[in-house]
């Protein structure tokens, strides 16, 4: 009898674990269907690729501020994400140092140029263009791959 109770408890623990896993995928797939991604999505994604997602925007933002990735960016959670902002976060996360102008200015404009050089961004787009959900996923896949290659 005890064994049965223990087994049921063990299985009950497993169900939310699996649901949580699929939950993060549901978020990604729902994001892929959106025409525009938000700053909140970018913040969450940068935490996700580091396996540090804390669930709340404020918690994630505080962690990214500490590591300097979102330093000085004045956007709200629901603000539409532009390529310049995403580039700035990516350039800081990857610690890009090949672009002289980006190193001097540290601006989104030159972070965007640096990201084009790294193959993270499309040269045919502009820094103020809003990033779609699919584009954010594609860019973050490239960012994560590049970070892994550097390790």
């Amino acid at each position: 009898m005890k064994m049965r109770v223990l087994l049921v408890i063990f299985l009950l623990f497993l169900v939310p674990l699996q649901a949580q896993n699929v939950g993060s995928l549901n978020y990604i797939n729902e994001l892929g269907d959106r025409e525009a991604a938000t700053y909140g999505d970018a913040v969450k994604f940068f935490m996700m690729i580091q396996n540090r997602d804390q669930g709340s925007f404020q918690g994630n933002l505080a962690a990214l501020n500490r590591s300097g990735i979102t330093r000085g960016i004045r956007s709200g959670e629901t603000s539409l994400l532009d390529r310049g902002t995403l580039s700035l976060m990516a350039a800081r996360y990857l610690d890009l140092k090949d672009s002289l102008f980006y190193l001097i200015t540290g601006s989104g404009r030159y972070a965007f140029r640096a990201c084009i050089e790294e193959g993270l961004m499309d040269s045919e787009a502009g820094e103020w263009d809003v990033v779609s959900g699919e584009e954010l996923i594609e860019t973050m896949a490239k960012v994560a791959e590049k970070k892994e290659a550097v390790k």
Partner: protein
Amino acid sequence: MNKVLVSILSVSLFISLSLTSAQARIIVAKVKGTAAYKTANQWQPLNEGMSLNEGTKISTGVNSSVILNIDNHTLTVNPLTMLKIYENSMTRTSSENRIGLRRGTIRAKVARDKRIKTVFKVSTPVATSSVRGTEEIISYGPTSGMKVYMIEGIAVGQSNNGLASTLQGGLVFQQKTGGMLPQNPLDPVQAAAMARIYDTFLTADEKTLISLFGSDLVNTYGGFLDKLKSLMDTHALVAIYVRWPID
């Protein structure tokens, strides 16, 4: 009577074994991190050893990957990828698999057996890759479009407007979203090629031109070599150095 019974049983066993060995199958060989599959409306966790059916969608999360054994082929699904297995059929003489790649990157290692007619196609919203007994990496995203990197063997990349390129030796097929034409897979080879023009048969003016610009030239479309060609009245001796396959 016993001999007849044994013969019938043997034939039945042989037929059933033959049919079993030719059955199409999709087996999840390895799961790293978060991965899910969808057959109806809900995503379910994907686990090692599972058997999947035609029509299944697969999605991987960040820092996650999946290895699928599809018939005798191996498909590695990289992080942040979503695909659908549209077709998976196998007989004793043919193997047909069609994958729809919505986003992300996959690596396909397609087994080659001369006795089996193999079709392994990967489609994206902009183009289709047809692998012919080889290994390739295929990616798709709204920014980069579809890219096919050849690792080993031959494949054909075909954009939705019907333009096809045969790929081998490290060539890359790229069809951008909204682009009219796929990128010429030989562009990187041409960009790295060197042309040397010898002054035999050249006129005095042509020799002067070469002395001004040098004789070792990168041959690009519309570049100096093309301009020189249009100026030349006579044939020239030209050596072109090409590095291929690309590393």
